[in-house]
Structures are given as C-alpha cells and as structure tokens.
C-alpha cells in the first residue's frame, strides 16, 4: 500500500523473534551500550572505596603481603630459584597479573547471578556484565603497578625495550580473565555449584602457574602441556617485559596465546547462545 502511494515503508527498529543459529554475535549492540559498560565498571570501582578506611591501600597491600609471605616461604625456606632476579621482584611481577586474574575470575563468575535484578528487568547485551566484572579489577592493577616501579628502582633493575610489550600482555591477561569468566558465569546461572568451586579453583590454578616458581623449573617434556595454562604465557610475558631477561622463552607464550584465543571465541559463542535464557533460568 505504502509503496503504491510513493511512501517508503518504515523499517522496524527492532524485530523480536526466536533465536536461530549459532553465530548471532550482535557486536553492534555491545557498542551501542558502551556507556552502560562504563557505568557498570565505574560503579564497581567506586563501591570498592566507599565506606572503607584502608580501601585504596588494600589494593597495594594484598600483593605486597603475598609477596612477603612467598619470599619467606619459597625463597628463604624452600630455596626456590628465581632466574637470577631477586625473589621479591620475581614474585611480585607475577603477583601483578595473578592478583588481577583471580579477582576478575571471582567477580565475573558470580556476576550474572548477583546482577540478576538487571538481567530479569532490563534489555541490554548480557555480555556487559561479565565484561564489566573483568575490567573493574584492572583499575586495581594500575595502583599495584606503581608499587612495582618503586621496587624496580629499589633493586636497581632497568627494564629493557621489552617494556613496550607490556600493554600487549596486559590485554592478554584481560582476555584470559574474560574468556574463563564468560564460561563460568554462564554455567553458574544454571548450575550453582560453580560458585562454590571458584575459590578452590583459583587456589589450585595459582600453583599450576609460574607465580612462586620459574617456568625453567618445569621439566622440558611437560612444558608444552604446562603451557596450555593461559596464565603461563601471561606471567612469562610480564616477567620478560618488566625484568629485562635476555630472550623470552617464546614457546609458552605462543601456546598460551593460542589457548586464550580459542577459549575466548568459544566463550563468546557459548555465552551468546545462552544469553536470552538467563532471564528465564536465573
């Protein structure tokens, strides 16, 4: 009718219909909601510091205290080598991405369930919730990084050009946290045992990563398998970028990066597939 009258028919803003197919990624919708993402991250960051006294200091205290404990136990008592670098610095450079990862993981796996009021009442791409939970601890990372700079100066360690690669490894760390977070948060909605497993998982994962010991301690024949742990690549990358070792051991980094890419793609696809069932199940 409209065409006959010379008026172009209006396109609907939104067509609502049953979801079909595996690859409806809808990334444009995420870009449209970028301001909401900003506010979600802002909310998480602000809440950290409201009504706390040591709030800001805790950000630095946590990795600092961990480093002291590790130094005493693993270096002084157990005498674990640290690749020619003073152990405190060695441990702290790993604790930086590790603290970020464990916080991001803990927050994002429960993010959907704790955000259930939003999920059941408002339209927005659900990916924003684990994404915001993953980005918020990165702010903490920046503060604890400042302490690292102080330590580097104290131990008179001069970073090499590898430092320029640091942002790259930071992005890798975020991607790792995001990919695992996507899988876990989606599972947690339906199977709440996931929430109970997380603290234990993080503990075990730490020992499976080169936080307190160097990769060089892992026997050659196991190293490939070991590198399937994406945090291996991230931590090795951080250590190389900050501590200026001669040549990085590229194999763990490359393998880990490949695993991260696969996990992230799979995570996004699975999450998107389950996304619109959350409101019904949560």
């Amino acid at each position, binding site marked *: *009718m*409209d065409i006959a009258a010379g*008026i172009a*028919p*209006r396109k*609907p*803003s*939104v*067509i*609502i*219909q*049953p*979801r079909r197919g595996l690859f409806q990624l809808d990334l444009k919708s995420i870009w449209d909601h970028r*301001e*909401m993402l*900003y*506010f979600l991250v*802002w*909310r998480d960051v*602000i*809440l950290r510091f*409201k*009504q706390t006294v040591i709030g800001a200091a805790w950000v630095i205290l946590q990795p600092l205290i961990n480093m002291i404990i590790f130094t005493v136990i693993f270096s002084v008592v157990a005498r674990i080598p640290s690749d020619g670098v003073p152990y405190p610095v060695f441990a702290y450079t790993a604790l930086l991405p590790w603290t970020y990862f464990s916080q991001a993981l803990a927050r994002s796996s429960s993010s959907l369930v704790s955000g259930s*009021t*939003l*999920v*059941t*009442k*408002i*339209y*927005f791409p659900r990916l924003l919730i684990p994404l915001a939970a993953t980005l918020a601890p990165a702010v903490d990372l920046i503060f604890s990084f400042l302490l690292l700079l102080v330590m580097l100066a104290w131990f008179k360690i001069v970073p090499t050009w590898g430092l320029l690669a640091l942002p790259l490894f930071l992005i890798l760390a975020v991607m790792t946290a995001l990919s695992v977070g996507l899988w876990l948060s989606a599972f947690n909605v*339906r*199977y*709440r*045992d*996931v929430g109970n497993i997380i603290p234990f998982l993080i503990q075990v994962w730490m020992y499976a990563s080169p936080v307190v010991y160097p990769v060089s301690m892992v026997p050659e024949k196991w190293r490939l398998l070991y590198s399937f742990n994406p945090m291996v690549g991230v931590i090795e990358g951080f250590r190389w970028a900050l501590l200026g070792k001669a040549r990085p051991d590229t194999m763990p980094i490359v393998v880990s990066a490949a695993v991260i890419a696969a996990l992230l793609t799979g995570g996004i696809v699975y999450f998107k597939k389950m996304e*619109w069932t959350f*409101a*019904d*199940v949560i």
Partner: protein
Amino acid sequence: MSNVSIYVENLSKQYSIAAGKSLQNNLVDQLTIGFMNLFQRSEDPDPDKDSFWALKDVSFEIKAGDIVGIIGNNGAGKSTLLKILSRITVPTLGRAEVYGRVGSLLEVGTGFHPELTGRENIFLNGAIIGMKKDEIRRRFDEIVAFAEIEKFLDVPVKRYSSGMYVRLGFSVAAHLEPEILLVDEVLSVGDSAFQKKCLDKIRNASLEGRTVFFISHSMTAVNSLCKRVIWLKGGQIVEDGSSTEVVTKYLATSLKGLDLTEEVWKDMNEAPGNEMVRLHRICVRRQDGQQSDPLTMQSPFRIEIEFWNLIAEANLHITVHLYTADGIIAFATGSQNDGPIPAGLFRTVGYIPGNLMNSGIHRFVVLFIKDSSCLIHRHESGVPINILDISKRDGTCYGKEPGVVQPMLKWTTEYLDMTPEIGNMKMNNHYTSDRDACVC
C-alpha cells in the same frame, strides 16, 4: 501502516517446567541423571506435563500515540508479553516488530545500588535503562525536581524511605522519553499522590504521540487512561476492543459467587414465610439488557418479589431495606398500600433508578407489612446487588466515592458579580498545571 508502533504476530512463549525444577540445578545431579538415562530408553518429554505456554498465538497491532491497557487474571501472560516486548526474554514462536525506542517500567529503581548516593544512582540507573550520559546531565534537574529529593541527593540510597526510593526510580524512568513506554503495575507501589503523578506522566506521554502499553489491576485507572484494552487469559487474547466494553465483560466473568441473581422456591410449603404470606421468587435484574449483565452505577435495575398471599383481602405492601457491604442501611423503600388484595400469587417490582447507588456489594432485606404498620414477615435475601464502578475519571482520585448512596442530583451555577479588589492578599497563580491543584 505508516504509523504502526508495535506489530505482533502469533507471538508464543513456552516455558519448560522440567528445566526449572531444582533437581537439575546441581551438576552432580545432572550427571547422575544423564548417567542413569544411558541405561533407559529415552522418552520424549511429555509436552503437557513438562512445559506450559505462557503466551500462545497472540497477535495485535498498535498505532503510535495509543494508550493500550492489558488486563487479565494473575498468570494470564501479561508480564510475559511485556518481557518479550522489552527483549528480556525471547519468544518461542512468532514475531514482533517494534518501531521506535522502547522504555520499560517493569520495576522501579532497577539497578539502584544502596551504597551509592541519589546523584550517582541517577546516572547509573539512567545509563542502565538506556539514556546517554549527556541526556542524563541535561535532564538531571528535572529528574530531581520530579522526585522531590533535592535535599537528599548526596545521601546513600540505602537511607531513603521506600517512598523516596520509588519516586526516584520512577522519575528517572519517566524522563527517558521513549517512543514506546511499557508500564507493568508500577502504580501498585507508592501513595496516592505519587500514583496520580505516574498517571499524569503516562497521559502526557500519549498526548505527545508516544505509545503506552499499560498493565494494571485497577479497572478505574485502565478505563480512564486507555481507549483500547486487551484482555489476556491463559496466554491468549480473549477480547481486544474499546475499554468500557472489555472492562465490563472482564468484571462480569471475574465475579465468583456473586452471580446469583435470583432465588426461587417452587414448593409453597417449603418456601420462607408463614400462614399469611410465602415467598416464591426474588430476582434482581437490569432494567435493560440481559439478566446476566453486571449492574453498574449508571444502570437502573429492578427488584422483583413474587409471593403468595394466603389471606384474602389483606392490606399488604412490601418494604425493602438496602444494606451496604459494611452493614449500614443505605435506604429503605417500599411499595404503596393500594388496598386489599385477594389471595394468590403476586409479583411486586421495585424500580431503582440509575445514578443513585454507590459502587460495591449490597444486600437487601424484604419486609412484608400488613395494614401499613404491622410487620408480618422479614426475609433476608441471599441475592447480592453488586454495583460496579466503571466510570471514567478525569485524572484526580481513583478510590471509591464516599457515601452510602451516590445520587446524581441537579446542580446549577450562575454568574452573580465581578471579583472584588483583593487588596493586600497576593493572588497565587502558582498552579503550573491543572493537575497540580488537585489535593485528593
């Protein structure tokens, strides 16, 4: 077609009960069940037992600027429909086309965090429901003024009273100004002054050409705001048409136990009464229309009393006392004593005019009077008189009118003289709109 706002075709939503059962919330249980299923022949899930259709084949079309009310019993699918249109959940079958930005008020104050201040929550909530940052900044002062929380902007929301909380939440959402507004029983919270504000906002939205989709259980609100009403039952559309018609039909069917309209005693020996008079039949019906149509405040109706007069040449008349639901007698009215009547079966009919009764459930008592002063029999009728209020109100109060009766009487107003000089008294012209003047 060009000013269609929402177009819905065969929309259906199926929920699986099996998935919701808590048994499967546990990974271990899920694995156990999966393991056990390996040893059993798998059966197809029984469609009747394991799932139900919250919506089935719902189709309609709404034009821009309409206010449409959705009514129905609890569980009829109203909230599911709104959830689908808000894109919170996905339909199982069918499709919907939406033209314009959608704002939903499914719950007020969604996303409010108790530790954050009012100011911070305005930005957070605004961003969550889809406002851009500069939009929020521009409308910030209006939002605060509408919610009346100027003094408490920098106080954490957890310290707000529930009224302030609700006002702030609604205020942010109301300033979203979407092309399509979906409202789900928001009006059931808050005091009457706040509810009035909400309704005004909704009415203004429609006047500005925006579409409003409105779920409510208040028939007066629905009838006053909406010209069109959709009645959902069991996930399907029962009626879709003009608000007065649909609301009346809905009220008629939802009155249980109040649909008794007559009492009959066929056998005179068993009927209530005595040796002078026996009741045969009592009936309450509309003066016009079907006997089954409900009575409204406007409809005239009749009380029919059929009785056997057993004493020849008795001077009988009947008086009826009408009681409100509170047990207060509203009024008494009676037939005239027209002289002696022979023995036999008689029918006395009392005609109650429209625009007299107040709304509510009334009972009545029939009194037989001999010789103008001697009460010979008193019968409490089991037939209720249920008067419904479906009047359209023009936007002030939505409660029941006071009084045991609600007569429409003649009133006149005439101009007498000019206003005198007020002198020192300031003329207050601070009513910015007609609605602000209402004090109910």
